[in-house]
């Protein structure tokens, strides 16, 4: 397939450019129409639709396939709104309404001397949350992102991030895990916050198997290994969409990773399992916003 044709694949740069163009041209009172139509178009993406339906079958066992199909539309509806809000923020600096839930943990994170890790999921708007965090906090934050699979899309996103990122927000792509780990360690030692998504394993990243909705899945070990090495707490933080241009930033009690033995994996396991339980609870209550478009478990192994 030619490079030009790849632009039109689901992860191709054409759809990012179309989204940006739409945000620049769609009247606010027509957004619901455009979002509804876009969600329907995303629903035609077979692998994504099937991935979400498989996940929903595990999150909501004994539910009918037709019900999960309608739920899948709702997932794509929330996804379309979320990415639109993110692009609108980058273009116009239009902030949504925010509600901080778990304020005591949020304040503890702000007041924590030294570095800390923020672990979150593919839920709500990771980008938007990081930018708003940078705006309302005086802490410097380093946000780790998985690189885009399409090089043109990666270049497009890097350009948009350069244009829109605040001084207190730095974005790193986990292309080379060892180089990045050293940089993140230095950031934590300098007292900065490091934000990582902890619900998806990208190729080449170490992982720990956990039980998740009765299935075995892999959780990235990186955030926990980093916390162990730098002796900083991990704060689970979730960005939950409440409605049009309205989000809740839910902070949860910190997870501590302690080195107790020579077996690093065994020492990581309690923290990873604590995170998995937290993630499971959030996903159970907000399944319509968990933007994981591949099955989180191996059906053959399950």
């Amino acid at each position, binding site marked *: 397939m030619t490079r030009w044709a790849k632009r039109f694949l689901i992860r191709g740069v054409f759809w990012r450019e179309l989204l940006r163009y739409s945000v620049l*041209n769609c009247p*606010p009172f027509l957004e619901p129409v455009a979002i509804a139509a876009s969600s329907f178009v995303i629903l035609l993406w077979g692998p994504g639709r099937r991935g979400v339906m498989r996940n929903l079958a595990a999150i909501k066992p004994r539910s009918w396939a037709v019900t999960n199909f309608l739920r899948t539309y709702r997932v794509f509806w929330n996804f379309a709104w979320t990415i639109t809000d993110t692009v609108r923020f980058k*273009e116009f600096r239009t902030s949504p309404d925010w509600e901080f839930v778990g304020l005591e943990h949020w304040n503890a994170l702000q007041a924590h001397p030294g570095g800390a890790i923020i672990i979150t999921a593919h839920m709500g708007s990771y980008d938007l949350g990081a930018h708003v965090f940078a705006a309302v906090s005086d802490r410097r934050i380093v946000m780790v992102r998985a690189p885009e699979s399409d090089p043109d899309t990666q270049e497009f996103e890097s350009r948009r991030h350069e244009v829109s990122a605040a001084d207190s927000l730095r974005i790193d792509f986990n292309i080379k895990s060892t180089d990045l780990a050293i940089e993140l360690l230095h950031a934590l030692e300098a007292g900065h916050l490091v934000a990582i998504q902890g619900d998806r394993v990208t190729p080449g990243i170490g992982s720990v198997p956990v039980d998740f909705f009765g299935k075995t899945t892999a959780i990235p070990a990186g955030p926990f290994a980093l916390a162990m090495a730098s002796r900083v707490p991990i704060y689970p933080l979730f960005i939950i969409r409440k409605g049009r241009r309205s989000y809740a930033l839910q902070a949860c009690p910190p997870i501590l990773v302690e080195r107790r033995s020579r077996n690093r994996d065994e020492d990581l396991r309690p923290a990873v399992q604590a995170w998995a339980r937290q993630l499971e609870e959030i996903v159970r209550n907000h399944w319509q916003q968990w933007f994981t478009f591949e099955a989180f478990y191996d059906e053959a192994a399950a």
Partner: protein
Amino acid sequence: MRVVRDRPEARWLPSRFRFAAFKLAAWMLYRAAPRRRQPGLVVAIDRDQTAVESYSMAIVIVTAGTLFAFDPLQRYLAWPLAATIAFISVVIFLHVIITFPPIGAWQNSHIELKSFVTIFFLAAAAIHFATADGWIRYVAWLILAAMSLNAAAAIVVRLAKSRMPAGDGEEINP
């Protein structure tokens, strides 16, 4: 970007609405809303912020457009088919308005132009059907009445601007 912290009644600030009729209604609700404190709440001040206005306008535009398209179609087609074609046609037409290349640099925002074009077509359709036979003229009169109401509200908003809460709050720079 201006924001108001910890005050849930700020959701009804008129400056969070675009259309004058909604601004007036919001002003009434803001005055009546209980004053309480909700720690951790951040309300952004932007004229297109509210869901109720956005969804209401979208429903009115799509419904009115569909009915205007349905009226001539239903004379030739069975009503379910006519309704389906009318609805799809309106959705496509609205997307044409959104995506039609604007005059000028395509990298710039043309939201105001597209908004004007959308309302213009709605008004033109309402004027056309206002003198038609049958039930469709009542739909047209409703749309024209709503536009007139908004125009009257715009005069009231302009006159009462100094008395309306201006979205006092703090400036953040995200």
